[in-house]
């Protein structure tokens, strides 16, 4: 999906502003939005890829004018509504109006540390040999799907070199749309700055992206 979330190389956003002694959260609602988002994955049953897709699917004007945790909040509300776990009427009322669904998984306080400690590893067993090896030249897909993709637009249709083979990992592009994990070989691909940015490139420099086998063809 190419929308405003895919920001690499876009001009006009201005300078990076550091905040001195920045607090971890800037308001109590940010703390709660952060925690509600993490905890809702248990009843919701969605993957990290789906939650990313929910955030980047916000209307571009909303995305660009929202703070980070406003984006998180809008994303998790959309996911919860899509699963029928909350309704607009309930959000407006600020109270439950319908009985809970049966058999819902809940993250309990005593399980939080262990759940975070496990995380969600994405490596899977290989079922086929890797198509590319370190040093191979590859060209990236030019596809511009209307759904989630982890191939940034600045790196589409570009030639790079396989820098590292990460093993076989859940293919985010498919997993985000609930089309299954479709594990695929994941590679770190090095792009020379000149290949990405032409005459404006700051040399010597390079950008490394992690891309899956379906993103790549031999160059």
């Amino acid at each position: 999906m190419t929308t405003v979330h895919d920001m690499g190389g876009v001009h006009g956003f201005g300078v990076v502003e550091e905040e001195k002694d920045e607090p971890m959260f800037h308001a109590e609602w940010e703390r709660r939005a952060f925690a509600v988002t993490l905890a809702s994955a248990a009843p919701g049953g969605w993957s990290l890829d789906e939650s990313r897709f929910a955030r980047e699917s916000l209307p571009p004007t909303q995305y660009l004018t929202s703070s980070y945790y406003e984006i998180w909040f809008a994303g998790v509300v959309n996911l919860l509504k899509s699963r029928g776990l909350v309704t607009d009427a309930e959000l407006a009322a600020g109270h439950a109006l319908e009985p809970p669904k049966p058999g819902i998984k809940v993250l309990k306080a005593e399980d939080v540390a262990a759940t975070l400690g496990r995380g969600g590893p994405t490596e899977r067993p290989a079922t086929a040999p890797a198509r590319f090896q370190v040093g191979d030249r590859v060209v990236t897909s030019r596809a511009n799907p209307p759904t989630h993709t982890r191939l940034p637009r600045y790196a589409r249709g570009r030639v790079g070199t396989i820098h590292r083979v990460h093993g076989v990992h859940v293919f985010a592009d498919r997993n985000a749309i609930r089309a299954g994990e479709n594990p695929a070989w994941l590679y770190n691909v090095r792009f020379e700055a000149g290949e990405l940015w032409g005459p404006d490139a700051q040399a010597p420099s390079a950008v490394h992206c992690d891309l899956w086998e379906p993103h790549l063809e031999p160059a």
Partner: protein
Amino acid sequence: MSAHHPDDDHDHSHLDAMTLRVKALETVLTEKGYVDPAALDELIDIYENRVGPKNGARVVARAWSDPAYRARLMENGTEAIRELGYAGRQGEHIVVVENTPGVHNMVVCTLCSCYPWPVLGLPPVWYKSAPYRSRAVNDPRGILAEFGVELPADTEINVWDSTSEMRYLVLPMRPEGTEGWSEEDLAALVTRDAMIGTGLPLSPEEVPA
């Protein structure tokens, strides 16, 4: 909480829109039994108080003082970091990239805000901001200058865009004048930004007393 605390249920007049909306969602989810409020408190406490860049600083200091650990860290970052007790969400797969006299590394996520939580905690606002995400890949030197980092013109800058679940941690160069320092003293030189690549470690003279 006092009866007149601004968060009180009966005093919505002072609350801004996001406070109200988040509170409404949390209440609905809690009433339906979908979330455990104590679990929310625990999640917040972990990331606000227990996990942060001190973890990463310990990893870097260990690598600076123990060549065998450094070798394990470069070979398999995830496992070597787990040795020190840091693992899990947003750190399931960690690769450590090493700065050298000729190469400087810098980490970004242009698509969202991927960041190695177990070693750095939650990211600062600037890391998640449009200016950083847009410019890190094509204007790394401009960003470094804004962070006060000047590198020799022939230093190669490698930018790592976190486009998968691999997370990147920069191993900065050990500052000069630290021969014989303990791991704990070395860790005090390792800033968060040095591990993202937008900063360099403190020099011995810069260490806060």
